[in-house]
Each structure stands twice: as C-alpha cells, then as structure tokens.
C-alpha cells in the first residue's frame, strides 16, 4: 500500500509544464501538499467531472501533458467518461486514481473498489492504451515517467492506504484558480 502524500509528491517532482487537474477532496489536498502551482486546477466540487476536464484540456493542448489526479469515488461517479476518453484516444492524457476504496470526505465508507470493482479492467475495456495497478512506492518513478512520456490514454490505479491525512487547503475561489491557470499556461 502507498502513503498518498508521499506518492503524489513523487509524481510531481520536477513537473515542468505538466498540467494537473485534481479531483475534489483528498486528491486536491494531496496535489496542494506536493507544492502549490499555477498549473494546478483544483476541484472543490463537480464530483465525477475530473477526468472530463482532463479530456477537454488534453484536446485543447495536444502538445502538453495532462495529468488527472483523483480519488476512486470521483472516478467511479464518472466511469462513463472512461468510455468517452477511450473514443477520443488522447495521447497526452493520464489519469491517476488514488484508490483507498473509501469515501474519505464523508467518513471512510467503502466504495465499489472495496468490493472488487476493477478500474484497470474498466479502462482497458474502454481502449485505454495502458492501465495498471501500482501499490508500492518503488513504482512511483515509473508512474511519473508515464505522466510525462507515456502514450495515452493511461490509467494508473494507485492502491493507497486509508488513513486520514491532514488537510492542505489550496485556493478555493474558482475564478482565481481558473485565471491563474490560464495565465500560467499562456506564459510557458
């Protein structure tokens, strides 16, 4: 099992101009804890929509890399979007699901992945180019390389432990997060 903060931190080392969209709740806190960055689009709501924001961004910016970092609850709610992404085959899009098999924001209730529902198998059935489980921190460097160089669409299901981590709260004003992101994207 992975410790989520340590894992996300390692994914975002020397990130360059990697564009990151983070799903509401703990995934947003993990991405913020790895270091606030103007090319982070933090979600605080819109559950189920994170992967689709990644798709719209990947289609608009085909020469940059887009990483969606989100939780199992958000990915399960947007499972249909894996089919939508599979149709478009964006080469520059990778999704990392931080899977603790729990709904962490609401009291750690078990999610569908706790009952054997397999997001890697779903992604492969949706014609993702590559999908795998990672459960050891030794795999973080490989996943980081996938985010920067792997041929998408990619899904990595990261088996993280379910302990509660302290909240690290980034910007909450959606207009500010958007504007900062767009300005940073136009200047790199």
């Amino acid at each position: 099992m992975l410790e989520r903060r340590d894992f996300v931190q390692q994914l975002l080392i020397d990130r360059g101009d990697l564009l990151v969209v983070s799903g509401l709740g703990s995934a947003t806190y993990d991405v913020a804890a790895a270091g606030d960055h103007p090319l982070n689009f933090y979600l605080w709501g819109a559950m189920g929509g994170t992967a689709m924001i990644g798709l719209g961004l990947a289609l608009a910016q085909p020469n940059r890399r887009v990483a969606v970092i989100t939780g199992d609850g958000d990915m399960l709610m947007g499972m249909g979007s894996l089919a939508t992404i599979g149709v478009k085959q964006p080469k520059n899009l990778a999704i990392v699901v931080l899977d603790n098999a729990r709904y962490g924001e609401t009291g750690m209730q078990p999610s569908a992945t706790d009952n054997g529902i397999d997001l890697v198998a779903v992604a492969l059935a949706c014609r993702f180019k590559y999908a795998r489980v990672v459960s050891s921190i030794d795999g973080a460097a490989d996943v980081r390389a996938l985010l920067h160089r792997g041929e998408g669409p990619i899904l990595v299901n990261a088996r993280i432990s379910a302990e509660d981590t302290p909240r690290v709260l980034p910007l909450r004003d959606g207009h500010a997060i958007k504007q900062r992101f767009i300005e940073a994207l136009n200047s790199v």
Partner: protein
Amino acid sequence: MHSPTSIETSWPDAIFAQFRRVGVRQVGYVPDAGHSRLIALCKDDPTIADVVLTTEEEGVGLVAGAALGGERAALLMQSSGVGNCINMFSLFRNCGFGCVVLVTMRGEFGEFNPWQVPMGAMTEDVLRLSGFLTYRVDSADAVDETVGAGCDMAFDGNLQVAILLSQRLIGRKQWTR
C-alpha cells in the same frame, strides 16, 4: 447527406456557421434526432473535435477543460439531458466558464411520448436556476441571430447561455409502427 434547400431545413447549418465564426473547437453531445445534421456537420469539420458523451454532464467538464486550454466548446443535448447536468453546472458558475448549450426540446408542442413531458416542462426553469441565460427559438428564421448573439455573450463575457430549440421548430417526432 442531403443538402437543405430552405430555411426550414437549413437552421442547423446556420448554427454551424456561427460555430465557425466564433471559433468553436470542441463540440460535446449526446446524440439527438433534432441535432443529427449539426452533429454530422461538426464531425465532418477537421477543425472541430466532436466528442460523443455517455451522459450530458460529462460535457460540462469538457467545456471547462477546453476553456482552461484556450479553446471554445459548445454542447448539444436534448431537454432531458439538462436534468443530468444540474450539479455539474456549478463548475461554470464557480469558475466563470462561458458556455453555449443548444437544447432540442422534447415534451412540449405535439409530444407523443408522455415520459418526455416532466423534464421538458421544467427544462427552462432548471437552466435559469443553474445560472443560464435562456433564449427560446420557435422559428427557423430566428436561429442565426439568436445563436450568434448567444455565442458572443458566452464567449466574450464568460456567461452561460442556453438556446432552446422548440419542438415547433424541430418538428414533431414521427412515430411509425
């Protein structure tokens, strides 16, 4: 694809021309008979990424992502799809993403299928409560101007604009045994 010969049948072409004028680069849709010609026009255009969605709410994320990446995107859906989007529409308001949604109406004038009526009857209210400006189009000759104005307001002003294409415009769904 047949070529439309009158304004009654060419209104999808007018919408498409407005998409071209304002530089729409992504179009998300759940297929609908009323949008079939417009969808075909978008698919045939190499400058537009057409994205078939499994549910309309995915389109809200698509529009937001496109805008973050500097592209304009539009959504096409049937009135029933508006209900699928309600929570996701908060993304537009929270962040100020401009969007044009073209809604083909069901469940109103001459509707054959009563199961379409509840959502069709509340579609415009739902859109307004979700922060949209709504403009209703009942005749083909009003499509071009309304869609053009809507696109300008949405993309120049980061507003959420919904254009309701009424069942009178689209025509009753023809049912055959």
